């Protein structure tokens, strides 16, 4: 085997960003379609659920790409945007045979099994920050039922009377294992313990069995390091390299 020098933190960070950008590129494509479909709202016209249904075509198309990492995608509409559905989504998942299936959650708030997506981070964070977001990894029990990362981008409009409004999010899901398998070849060749973590300090993938995927890393206070802001932060031998524009960071621990 040829001897190559160990990958740097910057190389790992670039790889993570590249993989995330692939997913966001698909989501950005959907946002263009959503912007078009929701445009009448900003012109003061009333919109119904049927008016956003045409996003199904592009959603199914991005799910139907061979070897696509995407296991779910769609548009989730904010409350009170559509005249005939207070809560609404056009969301599709890939079934075991790779065929897109439309998700049919209970969206009637009067029903006991109502699925209130308006409190979930993949919906609220982009709404509050106005910025794209990666949620997870988490167990997406409603949709994929797998260990999942959800990539969402907010959609806004300006209503003649109501002013600037959050109209919803477009997004896509990938399973955590897809990311793990693509990062381990790099991680494996790095010296010392290294983990990709989210802002809460949850391990996404690491090069040591003791750094378990999905466990909150206890060797460093990642949330505290995170709050120091963009760039690198060091404490007690652990250095967090925040990735620009993503809620993910590379944590390098002392050997």
């Amino acid at each position, binding site marked *: 085997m040829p001897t190559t020098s160990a990958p740097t933190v910057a190389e790992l960070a670039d*790889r993570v960003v590249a993989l995330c950008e692939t997913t966001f590129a698909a989501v950005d494509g959907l946002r263009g379609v959503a912007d078009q479909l929701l445009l009448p709202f900003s012109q003061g016209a009333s919109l119904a659920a049927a008016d956003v249904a045409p996003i199904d075509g592009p959603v199914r198309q991005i799910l139907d790409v061979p*070897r696509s990492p995407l296991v779910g995608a769609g548009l989730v509409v904010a409350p009170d945007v559509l005249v005939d559905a207070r809560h609404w989504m056009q969301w599709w998942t890939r079934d075991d045979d790779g065929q897109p299936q439309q998700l049919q959650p209970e969206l009637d708030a009067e029903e006991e099994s109502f699925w209130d997506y308006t409190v979930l981070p993949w919906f609220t964070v982009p709404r509050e920050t106005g910025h794209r977001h990666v949620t997870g*990894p988490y167990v997406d029990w409603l949709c994929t039922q797998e*260990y999942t990362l959800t990539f969402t981008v907010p959609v806004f409009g300006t209503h003649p009377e109501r002013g600037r409004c959050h109209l919803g999010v477009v997004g896509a899901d990938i399973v*955590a*294992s897809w990311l*793990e*398998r*693509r*990062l*381990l*070849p*790099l*991680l*494996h*060749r790095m010296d010392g313990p290294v983990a990709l973590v989210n802002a809460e300090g949850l391990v996404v*993938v*690491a*090069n*040591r*069995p*003791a750094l*378990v*995927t*999905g466990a909150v890393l206890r060797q460093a206070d990642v949330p505290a390091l995170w709050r120091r802001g963009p760039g690198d932060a060091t404490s007690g031998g652990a250095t967090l390299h925040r990735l620009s524009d993503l809620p993910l960071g590379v944590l390098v621990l002392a050997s």
Partner: protein
Amino acid sequence: MRSDGGRAAVFAPLESGRRADAVVRRLADGIALGLLVPDEQLPSETELADTFGVSPVTVREALTALREQGLVATRRGRGGGSFVRDARAGATALHERLRAGSPSELRDLADHYVAVTGTAALLAADRAGEQDVALLTAGVGELERASDAGGRRRAESRFHVELAAAAQSPRLTRAEIALQTEVGPLLWLPTATPAVQAEQVRQHAAIVEAVAAGDGQRARAHAVAHVYAALARASVLQLGLLGELDPDGD
């Protein structure tokens, strides 16, 4: 020691559903557990159809699938029939499975397994009779004496199923059996060194000792530590295998 209860469960009639798949699953689980041992002859197609309560065509379908999985071999002529093969003990199959997964999937499998095995240990301490403790103690000896990888894995699996049976819970026992096919080769590595085998024997003995003493919390703690120690060994192997993958492949 062979418990006939376990064998009877393998051959119990099926209720409904995708019958050939169910027959495959039952027999594959039995082989993984060592309830059906290598070179053992399976009952005839007619007998299997009777005991499972399915048609001979369904049995034939199932046997074809098992042959394709390398779990049984069919010999023709006088003294012929279907025989159990011991194909899954191999390190190659293990490597393939580890390479096809990811750390989070392996961890999740271990978590699920810990939920079943940990609770079985907790309840067994409360419920195991003298006979159960005797069976578990014999199981520890079986692992200690096992001289090859297949024998070690079967002894491991058998011990865990006996532990669930000692909890007096058919559901936990069925869950334990169903998980063995998946968990067995991953958590009780065929590549285990004598030191690891000795450590596993000590862990089993500690579980049995706590069960016999009626100390459920300690039995559970030992069982949980036992599973996660096995997970840690499998993880090291998996990180190495995944580290060699083509990063742009599947």
